[in-house]
């Protein structure tokens, strides 16, 4: 057999297929069961949209979904601005004072247990007597998702010829104009991808939102979590399917954006 060291072996293919099946099967099953007519979650009673109708009549759930979308869009926008700025500083600023502390703070939320981040932010909000609700969750999610934007944009900045912005400045552009006219258009796909990643992460967060929100402003994951603790309900399957559909839409949009930029040049890491 001509199975050299670089060939794909049967073992490789099996591992890959089994791994992907493991990742996707539960979500597929969830989606199928969301169309189940039966009240019993596990008995198949034919196809139906009943549970979707149920969701659209559940005002508390709708409110929570609306809250989540607003928090997600606002915090993703803030995180994209701050994350892009930090990526520019880290990738173009060379060594500066406090750089180590800066990048350390920036990357720590990537791995920091959420209970710690949530608790510490809540204690800050209580200490400064901030009213808890929409804005406190936005601040918390911005802090959490900024580093993801920064990593994505930095990867892109690393692939761009820096002599471009320098020649723009040699030709008389101010640094701000050089950035807006030359660098920003080139990194725009990764900036957009960063925004979408921040948005989906915010939409997903339960722990940090639970700590930092106030009474009467539950986000969708908080509502879903309290329902799930009481047991499986078919309506939750429908809501989860809607969220998965929304996220799939965002991913398709993100990959279209990177396709377009692919045509113009090599893209950065697709995270």
């Amino acid at each position, binding site marked *: 057999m001509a*199975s050299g*060291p670089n060939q*794909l*072996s049967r073992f*490789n293919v099996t591992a*890959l297929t089994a*791994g992907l099946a*493991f*990742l*996707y099967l*539960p979500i597929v*099953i*969830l989606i199928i*069961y969301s169309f189940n007519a039966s009240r*019993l979650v596990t008995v198949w009673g034919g196809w139906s949209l009943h549970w979707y109708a149920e969701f659209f009549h559940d005002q508390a759930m709708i409110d929570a979904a609306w809250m989540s979308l607003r928090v997600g869009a606002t915090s993703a926008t803030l995180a994209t*601005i701050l994350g892009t*700025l930090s990526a*520019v*500083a*880290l990738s173009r*600023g*060379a060594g*500066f004072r*406090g750089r180590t502390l800066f990048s350390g*703070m920036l*990357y*720590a939320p990537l*791995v*920091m*247990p959420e*209970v*710690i981040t949530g*608790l*510490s932010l809540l*204690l800050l909000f209580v*200490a400064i007597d901030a009213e808890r609700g929409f804005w406190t969750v936005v601040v918390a999610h*911005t*802090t959490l998702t*900024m580093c993801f934007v920064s990593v994505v944009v930095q990867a892109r900045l*690393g692939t761009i010829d*820096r002599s471009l912005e320098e020649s723009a400045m040699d030709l008389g552009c101010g*640094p701000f104009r*050089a*950035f807006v006219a030359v660098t920003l258009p080139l990194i725009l796909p990764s900036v957009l991808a960063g925004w979408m*990643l921040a948005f*989906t992460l915010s*939409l997903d967060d*339960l*722990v940090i939102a639970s*700590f930092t929100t106030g009474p009467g402003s539950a986000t969708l*994951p908080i509502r*879903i*979590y309290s329902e*799930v*603790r009481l047991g*499986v309900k078919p309506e939750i399957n429908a809501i989860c399917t809607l969220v998965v559909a929304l996220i*799939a839409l*965002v*991913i398709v949009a993100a990959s279209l954006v990177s396709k377009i930029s692919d045509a113009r040049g090599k893209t950065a890491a*697709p995270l």
Partner: protein
Amino acid sequence: MSAESNFTRPARLAAIAPYVWMVLFFLVPFLFVLKISLSQTAIARPPYTPVLALHEGWGAIKTAFAALSLDNFRLLVSDDLYVLSYLRSLVVAAGSTTILLLIGYPIAYGMARLPQRWQGVAMMLVIIPFWTSFLIRIYAWINILQHDGLLNRVLLALHVVSTPVVWLSTDSAMYLGIVYSYLPFMILPLYATLSKMDQALLEAASDLGASPREAFWRVTLPLSLPGIGAGALLCFIPIVGEFVIPDLLAGSNALMIGQTLWLEFFNNKDWPAASAVAVVLLLLLLAPLLLYDRLQRRQLERT
């Protein structure tokens, strides 16, 4: 590091806004956790004493500091509940990180061996579940694992078991949930190092008479150690503080430390104890966090 250009200085100014933000909302909050971990529980708003009242002048601040005590930390050491929670968290994190490595490595290895144009697709397929809601993916497993869920139905239909097996509220369900949720975090760093590896090295090993197995153990594995380190830390650190997965999938007889913190805070309303739990957890994770920071820095400097 490249020489300074005329864009370097203005680029540094871009750091100001995110810098201030992270100091305010990431660094400063930890000082509050530390301070409140040294306070006493009180039936008041906020539910702890002393409350720092800066406007009451220096004397008030001094008395407030004098009232701080290590009582909460004494409680943590003396009560088995906390010690057992910490131990359980470390054991669960170490166990699931090992399982993740054993499952993730063959997948990442298979991905790196795919033809170039398929690698992008495979990578996208691994990333998509990471974008999909964490809570929803755990909920999907509850659907499957519950008493009359799909898994038991399949097993009954195949006559593998004669009565439904209890899957939910067990440690196996929790490990399954953790491995399922963190798998992309393990695969991606592994794939990153494996795909960058020079294939000529393997050919050289084979030319020199090494069997594929030998070549794997003596060339591929040692060269992928940075990826193994990054993946292991990226999983281990957050799993130690995990709350949602053990809460929804594991039984309630043994708690992980994230659950203990959550209970102290939300159920017992004991903010000082919750803060003390967080401080000790942070100290436990300090070494892996610093190690992760060093790996991350080295990774970015290389690109």
